[in-house]
């Protein structure tokens, strides 16, 4: 793809004509870019700087009084708190398995769809549906599906395995709940990975396979030496995006399990919400927010590098 920065020089005539009338290019750039930048500075950057400042204080938003400066105490408290590490572990479990399953299912589906059976377009669109829906609203509804007695999920499992439908609860059990959130998230976002992998598969030119055919490479060999390497950059893109997204996961899990039972599904962002909006430990929550942000910002940085590579 052509790089966008290549500034095609205008003809001299066009340039001189343009200079004569209307706003200068520089004025247009300012006029067009400044409002967006101003909005982002006001609603994203300013709060962020404020959060960094608050993170060094013991401020509580529900109490009057000025913020007292306490240095790095909040950060030390967070990083030495065993409960907090448990939340980070819960998050890591969630991120790792949700991505693992998404990649396996998503890549598998993409390979199957790429066989171009009849009607693959319609079915692809149908498969995409879950990822477009509101995670919160869907998370809320999954609580009905998972009800041990009145929900259909346990019945399907009992039909397949023979276990009594009321013998387990997907949401209420300490062992199952961490897998329940993985299951719902995988259900939602597998289409995302699938769609990007499909784009990767379609970007592979025919002649490579034809050449491999001439060389009598087996289908398996073709998969390992052609398909997989060519799809990998696309897969990386999908994985990074999903990693960021599931690391920040809040809405679906908040409504599905709200961190329970106990705190086995309490992901970091749910802890953050509790600290900030239930316990009103504003300073402490801000420090946690900064830690979260620095982590995602690092990931976003890598993300953009991969993104640029995919573009080429």
């Amino acid at each position, binding site marked *: 793809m052509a790089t*966008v920065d290549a500034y095609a020089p205008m003809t001299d*005539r*066009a340039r001189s*004509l*343009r200079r004569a009338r209307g*706003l200068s290019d520089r004025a*247009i750039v300012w006029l*067009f870019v400044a*409002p*967006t930048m101003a909005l*982002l500075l006001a609603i*994203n950057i*300013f*709060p*962020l700087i404020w*959060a960094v400042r608050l993170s060094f204080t013991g401020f509580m*938003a529900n109490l009057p009084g000025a913020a007292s400066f306490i240095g790095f105490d909040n950060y030390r408290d967070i990083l030495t708190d065993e409960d907090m590490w448990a939340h980070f572990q819960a998050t890591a479990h969630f991120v790792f398995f949700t991505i693992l399953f998404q990649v396996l299912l998503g890549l598998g*589906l993409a*390979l*199957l769809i*790429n*066989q*171009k059976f*009849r009607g693959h377009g319609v079915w*692809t*669109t149908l*498969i995409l549906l879950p990822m*477009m*829906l*509101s995670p*919160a*609203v869907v998370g809320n*509804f999954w609580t*009905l*599906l998972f009800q041990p007695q*009145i*929900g*259909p999920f346990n019945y399907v499992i009992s039909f397949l395995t023979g276990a009594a439908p009321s013998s387990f609860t997907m949401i209420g059990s300490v062992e199952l709940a961490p897998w329940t959130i993985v299951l719902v998230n995988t*259900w939602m976002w597998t289409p*995302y990975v699938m*769609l*990007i992998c499909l784009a990767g598969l*379609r970007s*592979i030119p*025919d002649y490579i*396979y034809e050449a491999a055919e001439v060389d009598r490479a087996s289908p398996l060999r*073709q998969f390992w030496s052609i398909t997989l390497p060519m799809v990998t950059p696309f897969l990386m*893109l999908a994985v990074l995006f999903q990693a960021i997204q599931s690391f*920040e996961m*809040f*809405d679906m899990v*908040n409504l599905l399990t709200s961190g329970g039972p106990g705190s086995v599904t309490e992901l970091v962002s749910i802890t*953050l919400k509790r600290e*900030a*909006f239930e316990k009103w430990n*504003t300073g402490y929550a801000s420090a946690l927010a900064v830690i979260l942000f620095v982590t995602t910002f690092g*990931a976003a940085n890598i993300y*953009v590098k991969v*993104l640029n590579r*995919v573009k080429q």
Partner: protein
Amino acid sequence: MSEARPFSESSPFARRTAGFLVVLYAVVSLLPLLWIGLTAFKSQSDAVAYPPKLIFTPTLEGFVDLFTVQTRQPRAEIDKLPPPTTWYEKITREKGVVIAGPSRVVERFVNSLVIGFGSTFLATFLGTLAAYAFSRFKIPLKDDLMFFILSTRMMPPIAVAVPIYMMYRYLNLYDTRIGMILLYTAVNVSLAVWLLKGFIDEIPREYEEAALIDGYTRLQAFRKVVLPQAATGIAATAIFCLIFSWNEYAFDLLLSSSDAQTMPPFIPFIIGEGGQDWPAVAAGTTLFLAPIALFTVLLRKHLLRGITFGAVRR
């Protein structure tokens, strides 16, 4: 779409097996949504039946419950009332309740619409301008600015919610529609800039140059040449912004309480008389999700671009 052929020529058998597996996945993954749709048309007792019911007499009870506030009355009192005049009154009378008035769902729906369309319009408008500037002009530190714009989208909503909450309290924007519109615009504008820059990059510069030579100013060329050419891209971008605003939950949960509350934080709190009213929740969910399903079908050609910020285009 390119006509790349996977592997060599796949056999009809392989193709049919692939088709079967994909259809199987699609059907299984759509079952939860189907269940939501079915529950919306169940009666309260059918919805909580044990074991779950697949076959039932459809009713609009859920929808009536969703949109009305009801009070239970003794049978004798109900019999004294004049006969019901509307279909929804008939439904409630049979359950032994009378309609006391409209529920708050309508306000929440209106909020969702106002905030959704308001922020979509603003984000698409600002995004189109910025994307045009980034696409066509030399801007110092362009790549860094573009990365900055993208990185704002990568911020965890919960992480910035704390200071935004304090800022909004201070500016009296807490629980206001305008506050939510501004916030959603800020989140969406990054997507809008990235997507639209991709779309505008694809419009040949020659068109504008020809217009400039014909005596148009830059602004005129932008309005009369670039905008019409980018119309499809702008429409697709707008739909993506609308879907985000429509689906958003975390910000609205934390930064509004009633006046600016949208549907997602409200739906879990649809509680009928006597415990969770699942048909009403399902009815609300169905009405809420249906437009998105429609948009997904409309957008299918642009979905890939939308979900990757324009990085992958086909």
